[in-house]
């Protein structure tokens, strides 16, 4: 007796995840339920196929890029810790967190880390630069077959031209931050977790 979910997730683990991600106890247990319901193989990890089984994600033009963000470099499985670490980026920024101990490492859901998450969606080869080619590929994912190569090319050129400040014809993370300084990143990249 007792729920299947809680017997597999120990209290110590919940505490560690709480410290690392900032989620509450009840949020962690509920997200663990969700994790196990996605884990069809029941081996404690999620594969890319497990994510692709979600229809709303499968029809998202950037679905594959988002799924990729959950998997560390070169790995094909993500465990619950990794799952939570990635989801933590989408926690809303709370006021009391802004005044926290300055020596503590930056929380996963800070504005900078949210922007980094978005930056990595564009940065396909993870070399910390968005090249023209990478921008084109992501644009192609978003618009499908509805825009011609030439038009898309000129859009990519214009975007890089506006963002690029050091003339290397690619967008670094700092240049990316500058382009988006007026956007309300906190609101657009946050999900309202309940409880």
């Amino acid at each position, binding site marked *: 007796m007792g729920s299947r979910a809680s017997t597999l997730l120990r209290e110590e683990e919940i505490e560690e995840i709480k410290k690392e991600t900032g989620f509450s*106890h009840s949020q962690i247990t509920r997200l663990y339920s969700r994790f196990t319901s996605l884990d069809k193989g029941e081996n404690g990890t999620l594969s890319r196929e497990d994510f692709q089984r979600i229809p709303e994600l499968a029809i998202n033009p950037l679905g594959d890029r988002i799924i990729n963000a959950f998997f560390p470099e070169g790995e094909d499985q993500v465990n619950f810790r990794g799952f939570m670490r990635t989801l933590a980026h989408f926690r809303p920024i709370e006021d009391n967190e802004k005044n926290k101990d300055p020596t503590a490492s930056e929380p996963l859901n800070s504005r900078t880390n949210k922007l980094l*998450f978005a930056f990595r969606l*564009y940065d396909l080869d993870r070399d910390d630069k968005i090249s023209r080619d990478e921008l084109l590929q992501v644009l192609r994912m978003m618009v499908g077959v509805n825009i011609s190569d030439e038009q898309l090319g000129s859009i990519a050129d214009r975007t890089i031209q506006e963002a690029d400040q050091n003339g290397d014809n690619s967008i670094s993370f700092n240049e990316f931050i500058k382009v*988006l300084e007026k956007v309300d990143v906190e609101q657009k990249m946050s999900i309202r977790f309940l409880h």
Partner: protein
Amino acid sequence: MFSFHAIFFPQWATLRMERGAKEKNHHLYKPYSNGIIAKEPSSLEQEIHELRGSANSLRSEPEFEMADIFYFCRRGVESIVDDEVTKRFSAQELESWNLLTRSNYNFRHISVRLSALWGLGVLIRYGFLLPLRSEFALWHSVSFRLRTYLSEKVHLICYRICVRALTAIITYHNRENKPKNGGICVANHTTPIDVIILANDGCYSMVGQVHGGLMGIIQRAMVKSSPHIWFERSEVKDRHHVAKRLGDHVADKTKQPILIFPEGTCINNTSVMMFKKGSFEIGCTVYPVAIKYDPRFGDAFWNSSKFGIVNYLLRMMSSWAIVCSVWYLPPMNREEGEDAVQFANRVKAAIAAQGGLVDLLWDGGLKRAKVKDAFKEEQQKLYSKFVVNKTCLFENICSHRCISKG
């Protein structure tokens, strides 16, 4: 008296757990009245408009902003945390525990007293209710098998036996709208027991695929007493053949109404998923029926990928009871200028509204199959309109209509 206790105990059990949790200073989580996250109801158009308004732009009419990615990103992660489809294919999560281990997902704080009560429940359900019901079903079905020529009477009697065997407590509403000959009855599908529940109150012709095993035996026995329409799997693919057989049956006014479950698969009774348009193309009167099970007494949903039919029946017969409500809705006909898909959606909306279920456009077939690429292409097309054709920025593009055509 029995049903009084069956309602009282779960509430008491939940209160007991809450009290126990507070005593030990544990977090007790109250499941599922609100969901894990609160989703923003805004559309692609709204969000792109907001992003364009705030982004740093040198042009008067931007074509593409790097910030556009935020919309897809957030929506994608929201669907990873909570999506509308995958949760429909497993048993519904409960607010209060009904003392059945099978329905216990997240009730953790179980005291000794509650365990004792659960143990008593097990004794009653497996030692008393289950043997009583199986013995009843077995004995009566044997004695009535000899009289299969008395078609309609026996049909009803047999179903009443099944109902007693499951202790199904059914409330029928609006019986003046009961399906008549020459029509089609459509209902939302949760379990094979839906058939028993409806057939208990009227005679229907069933439509379905020929099964093997116990289901196959039941199907062959049923055909001997009244005209049912069973298809071989190969025939199902031939839509015209299916439509013809249905059409012929309906045209014959002496034949009973056909019972069809247009979702095509069992859904967990929290939502109604896409209705397949086949039944709505035939052109006869449709009698919609909404069936809603009360999850406090037993979870009626048949998760066919997890349990076989025998295992499922065993679980049903050892639940407290099967309590459900059936609403007969007023008959509907296809209107002028309405195609089969729109008609199907109209009927579906009526059933969902009556039963208090979520009306979804997603296909129940997603239980087993992957979603079609066409839907992703629709999303891409929609976004493209904001990148290139500036005049379409505020056009009201209904992506929902595109999904239902698929």
